Structures are given as C-alpha cells and as structure tokens.
C-alpha cells in the first residue's frame, strides 16, 4: 500500500476504502456536524419536508450534531430575531443539542470532546477548518450540504491533494499563530491552495501553542484550501485529554506523496499585517507603522482566545490605550471569558478602559458590536478584510495578531509589538 497524507488516510477510513487518491470523489461518513444561526436556519422548512416524508425524525445521529447560536448573539434587528426564534424553536422541538450564546461555533468545536484526531467534522460555516488544529479533517459547507449530512450522516467529497508545511526553528516572543497564518497567505495568495489540504507539521523547538494552531488552521480557508490540518503530537494529546476526548491519533505516513512541500523557519518571522482589502495583502508591520486607526477589534474565531487576551494584557502592562480609540474585546467563548477573568487579564483590559462584549461573532462579518463607518480604519484579529467586511464599503480593515492589535491600541497607529516586548 502506498504512503498516504493525513487527509487521504482519514477520508479512506471514513469512506470504507483501503486507500483514496486526489481527485477521486468519495462518500465519507461524518463524525460530527455543526450548524449555526447564520446558516443552518435556512434548512428548517426543507428538514420538515423530509420529516413528513419519512414520518419520523430524519436525523442520522443526534449525539453527533450541535446547533450554535453565535452570529445573532443576541439579535440586533427584528429580522434576525425572527430568524433566530424560528431556529431556536426548531432545535428545541427536534431535541438537538444546542449552545445558546456560549461562544463562537469554531471555538466551541475546539473545546468539544468529540473533535479529535482522525475525525471528519463538517460545519455550515467556511471557518470549520479551524478544527483541523486538532488533527481532524474539518471543512465548511453550505446549508444544503449540512442538511444532507444531517439526514444521511455522510456526504460527497473530492479528495484534495496535499501541500505539506513544516514549521521549524524557535517561535520568537513577538510572533503568534496569526503571524504564521499571514506568512502562509503571503506565500500562497488568496487562491494559491484552492481545493488543497494544507498539512501542518510543528517541528519548532518551543512548540506552537494550540491557541495559535487554531488560528493557523482557521485562516487556511483564506488560501482557498479545503482543510488546514495539523499532524497530531503531544500538544494535541494534552488538549484532547484535558477536554475529556479520546486521543486516537492518525498520523501522516513518512514519505507520503505531497503535491508541494514548504518549510517555514519561524525564527526569521517578523510581525505581519494584512492590508485592505485582502487577507493575502501581507506586509511586515514595520513597513506600515504610523497608519492612524480608529478602532481595534480583539476577538473572533481567529483571535479571541485566552492566549490573545493574555498577550494583549501583557503588552498593555505599564501603558494606557490611546484616548479616543475604540477598542472592542470579545472572548471567543464563555470558557475563554471565565478563564481570562480567573487569570486576571480580562480584568486588566477592563481597567484599561476596553469594551468587553459577550462571546459572539460580532463585527467580524458585519453583524454587530462595532461596525465601521465610512473612512474608518481598524486593526482586527479576525480573518477577512474584503471591502465592506466589517461595515462601510469605505472602511479599511488591517488583519493582525493580538500582540500587534494591543500595541496599536497604545499609540492609535499601526505599531510593531516588538517595541513593547523584550
């Protein structure tokens, strides 16, 4: 049998085949399925049609499904309130497991014991790739795919070919997962990995943290990739066992065939930033320091984790945010929120005058809690900066790490976090 990549092994196992090859279309079983109030709500009428057709609950396995309320959280318009009510009534009626305002779906999946190496995770959201940090094949789909998987427990997949990316060297204190993600975008561009699986191998000496890995996997989709998956290791094992999951790792074969291979020496990286209006428009922060900004957003499924909040508080120690700059902080889940309170960093940020909102998607995709007006500029720890992404088509969004966002809050300008770190 030939040597296989992680995704080839997972999809072979899930489709009951000895092996699969890139380009092949397979039917793979789903281990866990997630939908949220922003997209899964479209399925309800169709679901009821199928229920009527079968005269029974059509769901393949309710224990493998989670409905998350995170986009309209809480609803800021009557239309959204109506959509949410319909979805909430539906999940209660059909007795689905649901999370009501507990956090952003991808963070909740990362915290869920069911998400572990070798699993096939499907979500009705493009950033479902985030769960790949735990060694699962995790990918996003639209509402129809979600409904099909909900009923059949499987779906069609075209097996992607894989690019191997090895992180080597030592992570500097001023570099986080976001900088690695932006470096990958700088290398590939927005369409440099369309329909590929990005397989990450952490060979750094001080290890990339799980929070940073989640950020890297999260932004894989911005290169056009189908999956952004980490080869499991002791960091994966620790995370999975701590949350009560079972660590049954699937590893990429040595000498598997990859379409391309890359090595990124993290020791050489400088803090990076994506300029408007593309996540791939990446420059060094040092090249664009001094651009004045109106808002900082520290949050989202990309950059709202405990590591991000601790980093922000660390940068701000002994400093104050610039008066008049809007700073919005949104922990990505209730668990993160509580951990940050316990750790003390959230209290520090509150004392510095930052605005903390409830765990939710917020301004990231133009929903609520801090949209930008015409000509406003923001530094954000989120994942996309297309025109109009966070508000007015005349606004500008710069994507960066929480260290860079925090440093920029002090000066009111894009600022290199190295200035505040030894």
């Amino acid at each position, binding site marked *: 049998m030939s040597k296989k990549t992680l995704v080839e092994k997972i999809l072979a196992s899930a489709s009951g085949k000895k092996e699969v090859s890139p380009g092949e279309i397979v039917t793979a079983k789903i281990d866990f399925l997630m939908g949220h109030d922003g*997209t899964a709500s479209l399925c309800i009428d169709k679901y009821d049609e*199928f229920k009527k057709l079968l005269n029974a609950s059509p769901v393949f396995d309710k224990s493998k499904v989670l409905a998350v309320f995170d986009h309209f959280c809480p609803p800021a318009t009557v239309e959204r309130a109506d959509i949410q009510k319909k979805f909430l009534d539906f999940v209660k009626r059909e007795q689905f497991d649901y999370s009501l305002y507990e956090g952003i779906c991808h963070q909740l999946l990362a915290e869920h014991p069911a998400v572990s190496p070798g699993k096939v995770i499907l979500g009705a959201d493009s950033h479902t790739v985030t769960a790949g940090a735990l060694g699962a094949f995790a990918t996003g*789909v639209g509402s129809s795919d979600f409904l*099909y998987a909900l009923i059949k427990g499987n779906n069609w997949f075209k097996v992607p070919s894989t690019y191997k990316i090895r992180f080597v060297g030592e992570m500097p204190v001023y570099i986080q997962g976001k900088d690695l993600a932006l470096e990958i975008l700088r290398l590939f561009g927005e369409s440099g990995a369309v329909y590929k699986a990005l397989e990450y191998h952490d060979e750094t000496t001080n290890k990339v943290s799980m929070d940073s890995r989640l950020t890297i996997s999260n932004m894989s989709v911005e290169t056009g990739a189908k999956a952004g998956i980490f080869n499991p290791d002791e960091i994966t094992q620790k995370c999975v066992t701590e949350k009560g999951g079972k660590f049954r790792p699937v590893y990429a074969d040595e000498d598997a065939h990859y379409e391309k291979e890359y090595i990124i020496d993290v020791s050489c990286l400088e803090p990076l930033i994506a300029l408007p209006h593309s996540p791939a428009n990446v420059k060094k922060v040092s090249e664009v320091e001094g651009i004045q900004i109106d808002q900082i957003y520290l949050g989202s499924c990309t950059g709202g984790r405990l590591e991000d909040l601790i980093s922000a508080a660390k940068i701000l120690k002994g400093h104050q945010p610039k008066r008049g700059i809007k700073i919005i902080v949104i922990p990505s889940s209730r668990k993160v929120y509580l951990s940050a309170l316990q750790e003390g960093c959230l209290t520090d940020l509150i004392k510095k005058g930052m605005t903390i909102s409830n765990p939710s998607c917020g301004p990231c995709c133009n929903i609520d809690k801090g949209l930008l007006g015409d000509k406003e500029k923001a530094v954000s720890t989120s994942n996309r900066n297309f025109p109009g992404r966070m508000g007015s088509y005349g606004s500008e969004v710069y994507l960066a790490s929480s260290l860079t966002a925090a440093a920029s809050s002090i000066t009111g300008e894009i600022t290199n976090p190295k200035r505040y770190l030894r």
Partner: protein
Amino acid sequence: MKDCYQGKIWKFGNNVSTDLIHPAVYFSLDRERVKKGLFKGFDSELVEKISAGDIIVGGTNFGCGSSREVVVQSIHYNNIEIILADSFARIFYRNCINNHIIAVEYSGISSFVENNDYLSINLKENQINNLTKNTELVSEKQLVDPYLRDILEKGGLLAKLKQELLDGKRLR
C-alpha cells in the same frame, strides 16, 4: 438539465468574493430580498440589467469567502443556470452544484470572453463557442464530472436526497 446553454455573459475578475456577489446585509429568508442583492457589492444597478438565461464567467477563485448559500440562491432566483470560471472557491462550487446551478471549471475561460459576449456551451460535446467572436473551445475532459452530473440531473442535492429517501422507503 439541458445539453446546451446559450446566453449573454457577465464577466468578472479573479478572487471575486461572496461579499461582492451578495453582501451579507441581503442575507434573508425572504426570496425577494435575496434576489435583489445579487452583485450589489459591485454595482447596485447590475441586478436590474440581468435577464433570465444570462451566464456568469469568472476568473480564478470565483466565489471565495463565505459559505452563505443565499449567495447561490440569489443567482438561481435571477434565473442564471450556468457559471463558468477559471477556478472556483470550493464551498461556492459545492453550493452551486447542490443548488442545481451548473458550475463549469475551465482554466482559460475568462480570457476567451469579453463582457456581454454571447456564449454557447455544449455539455455533451464538451464544447464552448463564443458566438460574438466566432471562436471555439473543445475540452479534453468532461466539463461536468459524472458524479456531480447525477446531482445536477436530479435537480440538486436535496432533490437527490428526497429520491434516496423515497427509494429507501419503498424498499422496506
């Protein structure tokens, strides 16, 4: 699903995101609102100019960004049946097929056309004719993968599901 599609094309560039094709503010369960939002990120008046049977041609990574299926629903409600692109963003590609919109990936298609050219696409012969410029393309491989053709011919993924469930019911 027909063998041949013909119509006026609307040409777009590379990396056209779902936020431009159908801005998030037009997300709705109301069909008319969804229909109205098409291409509002480009040009607020473009949707009024589109006729039934028109064809979309995009560059690379067409439809990148969000998984919002309303984006594709809006295309469908505006009676566009087929989209060609040099390459598609993968969720958008899936959403098209699943919603009974024929997505044809053909590297080089965007340089074969100019905006508002008339195109004829023969899915049986795997041939594309630019009727305005009198030029022709013949594809070596099938323009639509047979596995996916099955989904399209059944009217989309959920129509296929319905048939599978009915067949399952009859077998019991």
